[in-house]
Every structure is written in structure tokens, then in C-alpha cells.
């Protein structure tokens, strides 16, 4: 069970069961859709920017526990952050999941998001965790084309 618990940490299961910011925004300034054709995960992320600061953020969609929890924790982590801070966090998050070596340090700087470090060991699941981040990246950039992980 150790690998299993490493992946499905309690906090991930909790966010999967009760996702935060699982809603549409009344007046979003950016919106993007993400799709993982491999497993059918779909996520829509909306942001409300004010002077380059994410004042509000929400998501909708359906997917596996990893993608849902990742979207939920992402929205919690990005609220009231600047666009530049959000992009930096995305960079660190992606590096934690895909780059070898700097794992421990990365995880430390990612705070709560470090619970996803276990996903590294499951290459087929990395895209589940990064899908919401690719999507918010597109929403912040004002892209309208749907984002896919393929």
C-alpha cells in the first residue's frame, strides 16, 4: 500500500471529494478549457484579473481524483497571486513532476502543492496533475483554443 498512499494522499482524496472553487465566475476576464484525450479528463478554468492579480479563480469539469484535486488545490494556491507568481508556481510544479534531481527543494517551495510529488512515480498520471495548470496558463494568456495534453 505504500506506493498507493504516496499517490493518493489524504489531502488529495479530500480535495477530490470536496473540491474548492468548483464554480463558475460571474465576470471572468479569462477562461480556458483543457482536455486530456487519453483519459477524457476535462477542465474549464476561469480567472478574474485585476491589475495583473488573480482576484478570483474557479474551475469546472470532470476527471480523475488526481486532476480534480490538482485543479482544486491550484485554485486555492493561486488566489490573490500575481500572474507572474502564478506562472512561476506552474514552472515549479511542472519541474517537481517531470525533472529529476531538485525534487526535495522544489517540493519545499511548493508548500501544500508538494503532496503531488508522488505522481512523479506514475508517468501515465503526470498529465492528470498538470492539465489544470496548462489550462490556467491559457486562461491567463487569454488564449481561446482548447488546451490538450497531447
Amino acid at each position, binding site marked *: *500500500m505504500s*506506493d*498507493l498512499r504516496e*499517490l*493518493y494522499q489524504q489531502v488529495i*482524496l479530500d480535495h477530490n471529494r470536496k473540491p474548492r472553487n468548483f464554480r463558475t465566475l460571474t465576470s471572468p476576464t479569462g477562461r480556458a478549457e483543457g482536455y486530456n484525450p*487519453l*483519459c*477524457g*479528463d*476535462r477542465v474549464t478554468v476561469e480567472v478574474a484579473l485585476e491589475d495583473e492579480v488573480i482576484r478570483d479563480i474557479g474551475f469546472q469539469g*470532470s*476527471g*480523475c*481524483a*488526481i486532476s480534480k484535486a490538482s485543479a482544486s488545490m491550484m485554485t486555492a494556491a493561486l488566489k490573490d497571486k500575481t500572474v507572474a507568481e502564478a506562472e512561476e508556481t506552474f514552472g515549479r510544479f511542472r519541474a517537481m513532476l517531470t525533472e529529476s534531481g531538485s525534487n526535495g527543494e522544489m517540493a519545499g517551495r511548493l508548500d501544500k502543492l508538494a503532496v503531488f510529488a508522488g505522481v512523479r512515480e*506514475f508517468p*501515465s*498520471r503526470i498529465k*492528470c496533475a498538470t492539465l489544470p495548470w496548462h489550462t490556467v496558463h491559457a486562461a491567463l494568456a487569454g488564449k481561446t483554443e482548447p488546451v490538450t495534453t497531447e
Partner: protein
Amino acid sequence: MSGSSWDVERIRKDFPILHEEVHGKPLVYLDNAATSQKPNVVIEALVDYYAKQNSNVHRGLHQLSERATEAYEEARVRIQRFLNAAHSREIIFVRGATEGINLVAQTYGRRAVRAGDEVVITALEHHSNIVPWQMLCEEKHGTLRVAPINDAGEVDFEAYEALLGERTRLVAIAHVSNALGTILPVHRMSETAHRRDIPVLVDGAQAAPHLCVDVQALDCDFYTFSGHKTYGPTGIGVLYGKTELLEQMPPFHGGGDMIKSVSFEKTIYNDLPYKFEAGTPHVAGAIGLGAALGYLEDLGLDRIAAYEHELLVYATDRLSSLPGVRLIGTARDKAAVLSFVVEGVHAHDVGTILDLEGVAVRAGHHCAMPVMTRFDIAATTRASLALYNTREEIDLLTRGLGKVREVFR
């Protein structure tokens, strides 16, 4: 047939990969609809070919080329026997069922379908029996018509019959659904189409490894299957077609071996089946596939089907008894495929947890997204069984599903 007359432990010894471990646990391979594992006779046939026969076919005057050609053509005859085709020239080697379908769409289809014409498929099809027809219909301004299925995952026969009309140029149907396991009434569907002079293509990718296929009894016009799902190598497959149709059809690919003579003014195409086999074929693959079909014939297709049915009944019973597990696809006539959803848990999470238990299943839309849409689900977990699976492995699957519940409690 009782399980005791099927010596599954002896059969498992023929498949070296079944003795592998994954995540420190014995491999329980239940992803056979994606690809099947290979018996020693197939692996040895490949090694033997490259070690003792490797040469180009239909070309050399030398001894090796003759050996390779002989082995390649023997494989064709073996496949002819396996499908009970009338002639070996009706057996065309392709890369797999996908290429077989595309070949028919691009040759027969492009000649037969004109603006306003229709191609009829079913709602159960794999993407490879949807997209080639969509591409054809788009090019020719034709229409793709889809016979619906009921909640059990069976084709609505009356609706299918009603779709056949003056403009129908071809019916293309699966023999067995890859996503749900439904066995389609291919003979009846074919008979109905033939009453209106409509030819029928059957995608047999999921049927050939599990059922006794007799193309003359089914009376289909085209039948295609993939070697790798039939215990043979990847990259090789078969398209069967009735002689009179194949002869009318233009070639698919141009190149060597498919010609009799070439000048810059005119090329005379070769006879069947070579007209459709441009370039150096996958000789080793064809020989490996021949070995795989020989292996299946030795075991007996009827006995294989009976054993797999017994496993299906056992697995259906076990999975149905698990709380929160719902089977998708409950056709009366079904191959050993169990597609299911676990309440509140995404198929991908189920797949990962089972994998950690050593149980390999498929999780996703199974290249049949319209089937998922029909049942209003994003994905299923699919356990697809083969002749080497055991009741103990089904028990390990259900135990793994218990772990899923534990984690997602």
C-alpha cells in the same frame, strides 16, 4: 465444457511473459482486447525466420528467398483455413485491422460512394471503423449513418434495417465490440444488407482471437483482423475480401510486388492478392501470425470460446456482487470483456490502483468515444480476458477493486 478439461496451467507455460512481475507482484494480464500476449511458438517462429530464412519474397532466385517465399505463402494458406475463405488469393496481408478498413474505404469505397450516398455503421464501432468512413464521406459528400444500440449494448436490429436504403453503398460493422464485448449478429445483418445488394465489411479485430470465424458462413464481403490481438506479432494483419470484389477494386498502394510490368506509359497490376501488397511485406510477421493461428487451431477455437465464456460468467458474477460496481454492456451474446464503472471513482484511478496490485486493465474510452457518450460516461475500466486467464486472476481483480474502495472510502 468443464474447466477441468482445459489445462490452463499447462497453457500458461507457453506464454513466457505471464511469469513476469510488476510492482513486485505476479502479473495478472487482463488487457487482452488491447493486445494479447505471445506463445513461445510465435516468438520462436520470429527468431527462426530471422536466423534461418530471412530474405526478400517473390524476388530472389536463390535458396533463401525460396524458403522465405514458401513460409510466407504457407502462412497465407493457414489464414485462409483459419477464416475458411474459398481461396488463398482472397487473403491480403496488411498492417492490422485499421489498415484493412482503410484499404477498403480508399479503394472500394472511393469508387462506390458518390455524392448523396450512404455508409452504415453501428454505434458500437471502434474509432478505426468510424473515421475511415467519415473521411470517405467527407471527400465524396456522402453521409455516415449509425445504427443505434440499446441499454444492454446490443444493436437495435429494426433501426439498422430501416437505415438500409437505395443510397446505402456499404455496411461496416464490428463482429465483437471492443468496448463492451457485444457479439453482433453479423450473419443476420449481412443477409439483410445482401437482400438489397449492399456489401458488408466486418471488423473482426476482437472476434478472431475468441470465436470460430467462417467468412463463407457469415457471408460477409470483407473481413479484417489484427495479428497482435490474435496472439501473433504486431504490425501484421489480414484483410479477406471476396474475389469478385477484390478484382474490381483499384490498388491501394503503388510500388514493388503489386505490378506485372511497369513502363512510364503504363503499368499492369499484379494478380490477387499481390495487387494489394505493395513493397516488401512484413514477412516475419506473417509467419509469426501463421504460427499463432496454428497454436489456436491446436487448442481448438470452440474449446477456447467455451473456456472464455466460462470465465466471463464467473467474472460477471464476481463483479456484479461488488457494491458500487456497475457493468456497462450486458448483451446476451457477449465475448469475455467486462467494462465497468466504480461509483464515485474515475476509471483512471481504478486502473492505477489495480496496476499497483499487478492487475493490468485498460481505463479510458477504449477508442470508442461514441459508446461512452451513449452511456453518458467519460470512461470505463475494462478487463478483457483471454484463453490463459484463470479464476484466481478474476479473484485478484475483485480483491484489487476492494483496495479501490478502501482508498476512496
